[in-house]
């Protein structure tokens, strides 16, 4: 049977306040970029980002700091949203459609160059296996560390490192071949 002090400690840890506006500002770009990696840049990534935050916001009272970092919690939701999306769309390589960015959103040359690069990158990432796509999206889209990804995916941190390393190597090779064409 749990002791009273221990219980209070657990409950106290569970009820620390969270600065939701700060959390939103910090995580929005990460979640959006994660979805850009998963489904391509554009309205669909925005829709899935919005769905993720709405779910997180609605369930935010259930979040407990002692169980996981808030970022991990939000990305758990994001991954579920992505899974739901793919299940519905029955498509796992939507990155080929990347680039559906409204013309008035990005401006002039820099934006164009960035967009070109990402469109190309996205096209190649879409050729990788699903698991590698997911891990690249978490690492480079969401900017997560290996430990965080490990906590989220259930893999060990070293395993995450190995898979990402191989995926990057494979991706670079694909891009070099593409450059030579």
């Amino acid at each position, binding site marked *: 049977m749990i002791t009273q002090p221990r219980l209070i400690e657990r409950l106290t840890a*569970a*009820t620390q306040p969270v600065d939701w506006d700060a959390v939103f500002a910090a995580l*929005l770009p990460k979640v959006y970029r994660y979805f850009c990696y998963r489904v391509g840049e554009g309205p669909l990534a925005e829709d899935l*980002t919005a769905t993720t935050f709405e779910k997180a*916001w*609605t369930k935010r009272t*259930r979040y407990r700091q002692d169980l996981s970092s808030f970022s991990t919690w939000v990305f758990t939701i994001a991954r579920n949203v992505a899974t739901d999306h793919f299940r519905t769309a029955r498509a796992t390589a939507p990155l080929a459609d990347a680039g559906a960015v409204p013309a008035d959103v990005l401006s002039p040359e820099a934006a164009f160059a960035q967009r070109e690069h*990402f469109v190309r*990158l996205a096209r190649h990432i879409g050729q990788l296996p699903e698991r590698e796509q997911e891990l690249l999206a978490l690492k*480079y889209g969401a900017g997560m560390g290996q430990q965080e990804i490990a906590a989220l995916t259930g893999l060990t941190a070293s395993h995450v490192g190995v898979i990402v390393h191989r995926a990057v190597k494979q991706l670079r090779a694909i891009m070099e071949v593409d450059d030579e064409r």
Partner: protein
Amino acid sequence: MNDEFLTHGLPDVRPAFAKALQGKLHGIERRQRRRTHAVVSALVVGLLLSLMLTLPPVRAQVRWLLREIGGFKFVETENPQEEWKAVRTAFSTPTPAPSFDGDYLMERVVEAFPYILDAPVWKPDGYAQNEYVIIRQKPEGTLVTARWRPFACSPCETYISFEIRKLPEGFSLIPAGSEGVAGAGTETINLGDQTATLLRFPSTNGGAVWALVWRAEKDGERFEYRLSSNDQKLTREDMLRMAHTTGFGWYVEKIRQRRGSELPMVNLPEILAVYPELARFLPTRLPEGFTLEPQMAIEPDSQRVILGWRGENVDDSGHAPIAISMSVGRPFDVPFVVKPDTVKEVMVGHTVAAMWELEFLREHDPDGRTYSLCCLRNDLQYCLSWREPGVTFDDIVRMVESIPDDAGALLEEFEFLLDVTP
């Protein structure tokens, strides 16, 4: 590993999208807050109902409570300003205390003599309360008496009587003994913090009379109580049991004083995530489509929690109302089964339960009927309220039957809930 090419050119979030999303989230928050307020209100009402309806006499108290808690009277008028002046004048003029001497309906005198609600909650089977309260003005103070007689016994000499006398200044709290009572046998009894004297003496009709006398101080005022009966079947234990269930009218008063204050609310899924054993308090079988309301209210004084379940039916305002509410906690210090004529005993499995309709809600809810059922399971007192149509008695029976049998073992842990309240 050179992986810069993977982070080069990452798209930024459109400011317009970020702003729109943030606005949407705050909109959700506002809706949740409104919903929480609605939940709090519903749960508070549920709590009040479950508390006040466990106290007899049910009808009189309910009316009294509604009048006290509601405190509003709406009158249509053609000349509001004049009416308002009259109302203000009436409120600013102290009303002289009415002088009662005679027999009065309980609801008429309960405001002047609220301590009549201290009458025993428990009575032996078959007794019905006399709807009249006897008030006598005596030199030693006003004597207020409630009486019970065997049901359908008329003419009837058998009675249980509970007299309350407000003692003037200077009276000690030591109760009167058997002085002046010929042939009385006496016994000193501890009644909570008070010392009481139990008397047994011959009655004028040949039998014997029980009388239990004690004095107590409440809110700075001193009272003398005398519980007596000439019922020859009544035992000493019956007398003591009745005496132990006196004084709960003050609990109602306490509720009245607490009106307007909000009950502490906690998030139930959060608590259950930390302390999953608490789920053993909860019924496992629910009517189809019902889900547990995540907000749980805590009534700190009585250590009861109040929960609710929503069905799938959505009302006009777009949300499903709480259709079943349940309070669970330590039993009151009294057996809750009271027997005014509106309460009937029902069996829930092998458990005896008290069930009644909240008739006064018909006025506000002509299309529905709201019922309450209270029973003891595993040393915990469960009171469920539900509205028909939508939920049936059988649904409630199944819920009660599905309460795990080991829930009582959690009683000791109940206090922790108080530590997580805001």
